[in-house]
């Protein structure tokens, strides 16, 4: 009995040490990213991991201006906001129909067609997409990127909504109809609010992927006033420069919005990933 207890203690200690080592491996690059923003190239080269000698935000101000940050932030925000709303509206309505009319052949066909979008990434058809965007006269607009994001993220979201809606009893809707509510009213007033958990999951997961999407803007947004944050990072960072530490504030500004989002909503974000996986 006693040996069992010591055994457990050893396993516990071993596990804890292992996590600590892994924690350091994860944390050191993040720490390095942060402290280097306050250092000169010389200071960073001599003592890369020490705390900065002085906390001056001058480098941040310069990066902020060089990236035209407020403008880039707004562009990214507009794309993400409207894409997420679009995904939720399209997929909730679509998932609802595909669930409630799930037995019909058309619904089955549409569902399979949409599922193929999960399996086969849109990146393969980016050239055809280029032609479509040109044809619609949407080249170099935020609208184009938003629509693409909606289409790319619809399949998984529809899948989530469709399976969640089976947990909402149809009787509820019937009852409302008997009380005289019309079809759309029943959906928006009764069914939609009940889908809050999936709406939250879809919103969180899509905000992360859409905010961090680089390839869409890279192909479809050319002019600088419409560039998103990542394009500004791409434009400025990575070029050869002796003043290499000045790149670090730009990188931090590049990831800051989602990092803040994560710090505030950590429980919900991790919960969203869990829900997304379990249902998916």
């Amino acid at each position, binding site marked *: 009995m006693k040996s069992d207890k010591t055994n457990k203690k050893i396993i516990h200690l071993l596990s804890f040490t292992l996590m600590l080592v892994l924690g350091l491996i994860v944390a050191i690059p993040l720490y390095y990213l942060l402290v280097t923003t306050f250092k000169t190239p010389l200071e960073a080269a001599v003592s890369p991991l020490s705390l900065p000698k002085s906390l001056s935000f001058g480098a941040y101000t310069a990066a902020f201006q060089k990236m035209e940050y407020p403008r880039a932030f707004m562009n990214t925000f507009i794309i993400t906001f409207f894409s997420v709303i679009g995904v939720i509206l399209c997929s909730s309505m679509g998932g609802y129909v595909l669930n409630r009319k799930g037995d019909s052949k058309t619904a089955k066909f549409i569902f399979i*067609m949409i599922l193929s979008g999960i399996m086969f990434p849109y990146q393969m058809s980016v050239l055809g997409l280029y032609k479509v965007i040109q044809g619609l006269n949407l080249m170099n607009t935020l609208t184009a990127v938003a629509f693409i994001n909606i289409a790319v993220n619809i399949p998984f979201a529809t899948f989530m909504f469709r399976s969640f809606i089976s947990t909402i009893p149809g009787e509820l809707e019937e009852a409302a109809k008997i009380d005289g509510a019309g079809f759309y009213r029943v959906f928006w007033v009764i069914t939609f609010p009940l889908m809050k958990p999936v709406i939250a999951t879809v919103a969180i997961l899509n905000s992360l992927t859409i905010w961090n999407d680089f*390839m869409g803007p890279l192909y479809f947004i050319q002019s600088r006033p419409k560039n998103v944050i990542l394009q500004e990072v791409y434009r400025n960072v990575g070029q050869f420069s002796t003043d290499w530490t000045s790149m670090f504030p730009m990188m931090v500004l590049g990831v800051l919005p989602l990092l803040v989002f994560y710090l505030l909503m950590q429980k919900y974000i991790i919960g969203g990933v869990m829900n997304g996986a379990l249902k998916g």
Partner: protein
Amino acid sequence: MLWGTILFIKSPFSNPERNDKVKNKISINSPYILMMVPLLAIYLVFYIIPLLYTAIYSFTDWSNYSSVTSFTGLNNYQKIFSDYTLFIGIKNSLIYAVVNVLMQNVIALPVAVILNSKLRFRNGFRALFFSPAVLSTLVVGFLWSYILTSSDYGLLNKMIGVFGIEPVNWLGNPKTALAAIILTQVWQWFGWAMVIYLANLQSISEDLYEASMIDGCSRWKQFLYITIPQLAPAIKINLVTGMISGLKVFDIVVSLTKGGPGYSTETILTLMFSKFSEGNYGYAASFGIVFLIVSILLAGVLLRLFKVWEDRLN
């Protein structure tokens, strides 16, 4: 704000009662059809039609250099298969997809099991391990390019220098460049896989473990014969989604190696982008179609493998 938008969008549909009566006379299903319209319209215009277009244009000489586009038959495909960079691209994308996913999961699964037990600071560890996943892959690539650089200030070389190891040109050597790409992505994404395992672990019934304790099972046997089979759903999700997104590897290559040194870290999508930037659109389209075929094959193999495994479990 969300609700405001919904109410606003609702209004064009308004006067639902009268609408419904009229619709009922035409067909019972029509309101359902109307609700499908936004999804179908966007999906068709921005996913299905581009796919068809890509297939069609892969048989043409569509480019920036001439204003006329004409069908050239299989020309692009002949060119693509005599272009050795394509095979480098396919090979790198596949190596990346497979090795990255395996390493991520080999780390994530045990970590999830440990963090599912009563360990001190386990919530802190979970939050920390997941945090790189919210960062942009592009920025992570740039960050690691400074850490791995062979310049005097390269952090990793400085750190291994403490142990007396000679500096290594991680990104400049074709042999280590792809490995470096994979390691940064394992660093960034194992926490995501870990969270999915945690979700699955929480759904395993305690009874299974208690019953096996009575039967005198060791912890190791419990892990092998209870935990792993019970984790089958999470393993499947992680491997399939990881492989599919692995084939799409692009951002990290752009920021970490730009495909170099030479062509040693080019992937299907970075090659496609360089053909696109050169203005050879038709040729780039044929890369897209090859990419489609590779991903169908990979998905097919994976699903077949899982079917065999699941049949054996039952």
